[in-house]
C-alpha cells in the first residue's frame, strides 16, 4: 500500500525529469525565434518538477495514514475486476479488426458482463450482450453512418 501511495508522485517526478530533458533536446525552429517551440515546455517541465517533488514529500509525510481508496482497490475482487477490464480491453483491441465489430463486441461485452455481473446471471448477461451489440452496431453503422469493421 505504501508503494502504491508513492507510485503517483514518484511517477510524476520521473515524468517531469524526462519531460525536462526532452524539452531541452527539442529541435530549434528554422522560422522565427529558434527557441520558440522550447520555452513553454521547458518552463512547464521545471514547474512540474518542483510541484511533483512537493507532492512526493507531502505523501511521504503522510505515509503512515491509511488511504481508504487504495485499501478498497486492493481488497475483495476489485483488483481482479480492474485487471480483467484492462485485459479484456487489450484483447478487444486485437480482435476488433480481424473479427469485425459485431463478433468482437459480443465477446468483449459478454466477457465483461460474465466477470462483473457474475455467471449466475447468465441469462441477463446473454440477453444484454446480444441485444446491446446489435443495437450499437445498428445505431452507429446504420443510423449514424460510422464505418465499422
Amino acid at each position, binding site marked *: 500500500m505504501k508503494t502504491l501511495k508513492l507510485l503517483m508522485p514518484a511517477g510524476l517526478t520521473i*515524468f517531469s525529469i524526462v519531460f525536462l530533458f526532452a524539452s531541452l533536446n527539442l529541435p530549434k*525552429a528554422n522560422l522565427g525565434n529558434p527557441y520558440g517551440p522550447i520555452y513553454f*515546455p521547458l518552463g512547464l517541465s521545471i514547474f512540474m518538477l518542483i510541484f511533483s517533488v512537493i507532492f512526493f514529500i507531502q505523501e511521504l509525510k503522510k505515509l503512515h495514514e491509511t488511504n481508504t481508496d487504495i485499501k478498497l482497490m486492493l481488497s475483495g475482487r*476489485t483488483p481482479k*475486476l*480492474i485487471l480483467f*477490464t484492462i485485459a479484456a480491453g*487489450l484483447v478487444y483491441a486485437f480482435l476488433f479488426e480481424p473479427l469485425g465489430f459485431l463478433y468482437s*463486441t459480443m465477446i468483449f461485452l459478454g466477457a465483461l458482463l460474465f466477470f462483473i455481473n457474475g455467471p449466475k446471471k447468465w441469462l441477463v448477461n446473454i440477453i444484454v450482450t446480444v441485444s446491446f451489440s446489435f443495437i*450499437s452496431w445498428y445505431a452507429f453503422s446504420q443510423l449514424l453512418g460510422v464505418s465499422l469493421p
Partner: protein
Amino acid sequence: MDISSFLDGLSIAVQPINILWIILGGFLGTIVGMLPGLGPATAVAVLIPVTFGMNPVSAIILMAAIYYGAMYGGSRSSILLNTPGDGSAIAATFDGYPMAKKGQAGEALAISAVASFIGGLMAVVGFIFLAEPLANFALKFGPAEYFLLMLLTLSAIVALSIGRMIKGFLAMMVGLALSTVGIDTQTGVYRFTMGIPHLSEGIDFLIVIIGVYAIGEVLYNFLNIDKQKKEKKKVGKVWFSKEQWKRSKWPILRSGPLGFIIGVLPGAGGSIASMISYTSEKQISKRTEEFGEGAVEGLAAPESSNNAASVGAMIPLLTMGIPGSGTTAVMLGALIMLGLRPGPLLFEQQPETAWALINSMFIGNLALVIINIAMVGLLVKILDTPAKVLYPIIVLLAFIGTYTLSYSVIDFFLLLIFGLFGLMMKVMDIPIAPLVLALIVGTDMEQNFRMAVLSSNGSLGVFFSSGVSIGLVILTMLSLCYPLILKLAKRKKNMSEDEDQVYKSS
C-alpha cells in the same frame, strides 16, 4: 438582443429533428447522470460519438441536453439512493434523501424537477441578456488578454480544489504537457512525438477525456461495486402539496440567479453553486433545525441553483470559447472536433447557431421536467437496473466512441492508459477537471502567449498594457490567494467562537 436572430434560432430549435435530439439527449443524460458516481462530464464524454455525423447545431443542442439531463438525473439518485451522481448533486442528498425516507419520495422528486426547471429558465433568461454583450466585449481581446483569461480560468479551477492545490496544479501541468505533443503550429517543429506518426497531430483530447471520465470512473466505481445498496423505493404520487410549494418558492427564486452567476464564473460550477445556495437558505430560514431532516426548501434551493449554474457555465464557453468547468471543456472538445469553434465570433458569424442553442434550453428544460415527473416510474425501474450491467455497457461505449474518432485501434491502448491514469488520479484524490481543461486550452494558451510576446518584440510588458489585461492579472492573483483568504477567515471565525465560549463559560 437581436430579435430576428432570436427568432431564427427559435425556428431551428423547434425543428422536429432538433426537438427529438433534445428529448433523446435529456433522457440519455438523465439515465447516465442517475448512475451512482457518474456525472454530466462522463455523460457527455460517453455520448460524444452519437453526435458524429450530425450538423454542429444539432450536436451542440444534443450535448447541452445531455448536460442538463445529467444534472436532473444526478439528483434522482441523490434523493432515492443517497448516492449523488456527481458533486453538484451532493446537496440534494442533505434533505432529498431524508424526505424519501419519510415516505415523501414523490414529493421530493417533483419539487426537485420543478426547482431545476425554474432555476434553468431563470438562467436562460440571464443567458439571453448577458451572452451578446459579453461576446462583444471579448471581441476586443487580443492574444495577451486571451492568454490571461485562460490563465485565470485554470488558476480559478485549481484554487477551487481547496485543500489539494498542489495536486490541482500538477493535474493542470500534466494537461498542459500533453497539449504540447504534436507539430508546433507556429514553427512546424515536431514535439514529443517519439517518432510515432500517429502522434504528429497531437494526442486527441477526446481520447484522454473518454479515458479519464468514462473508463477511469467505471474502474473507480469497482471499488464499491459489491457494496452498492439495493433499496426498494416506493415513490407514490409525484407532486407536492401547496404548503411545500409555499415553503419552496422563494428559495427557488433566490437560488436561481445565484447559481447562474456562480456558473458564469470560471472554475466554479454546480457543486459550489448548490452548496452556497443550501447554506445561505439554511442561514436565513426560520426552520434551521429542519434542515438535514427533510426540509423541502433544503432540496429546492440547491436544485434550482445547480441547474442555473449549468446554464451559466455555457456562457464563457459560447461567448469566449473558454470552458469554465470539466463538462463544458468536454463539450468544447467535441465541438472543435465537429468543426464548430465557439467564441465571440460565433454570435457575429453564426448567430442562428448560438440562438438555436439558447432556445433549445427552454425546450430542453420543459422536456426534462415532463420526463422527470411523468416518466418517474420508468426512471425508477432504470435505477433498479444493476450497476454491474450498466458499467460494462459504458466501457463498451467508451471504446466505440474512441474508435469513431480516428478509426484506429491504436487509440484503444491510449484509452486504457488514460483510464488507468484517471483511476489513479481518483484514488490519490487529484482533481480531474484541471487536467481536462488544461489539455483543451493548452495549445491555444501557448500560441496566444507566443503571439503576444512576438507582437511586443519579446517584452512581457504586453501582459500589463491594457486595463483588461491588468484586471485579469489581478483576478488571477486573487484567485490564487483565495484558499489562503478562506483559511484566514476560518481561523478568525474559530477564534471568535473560542472567544464566545470563553465569554460564556466565564
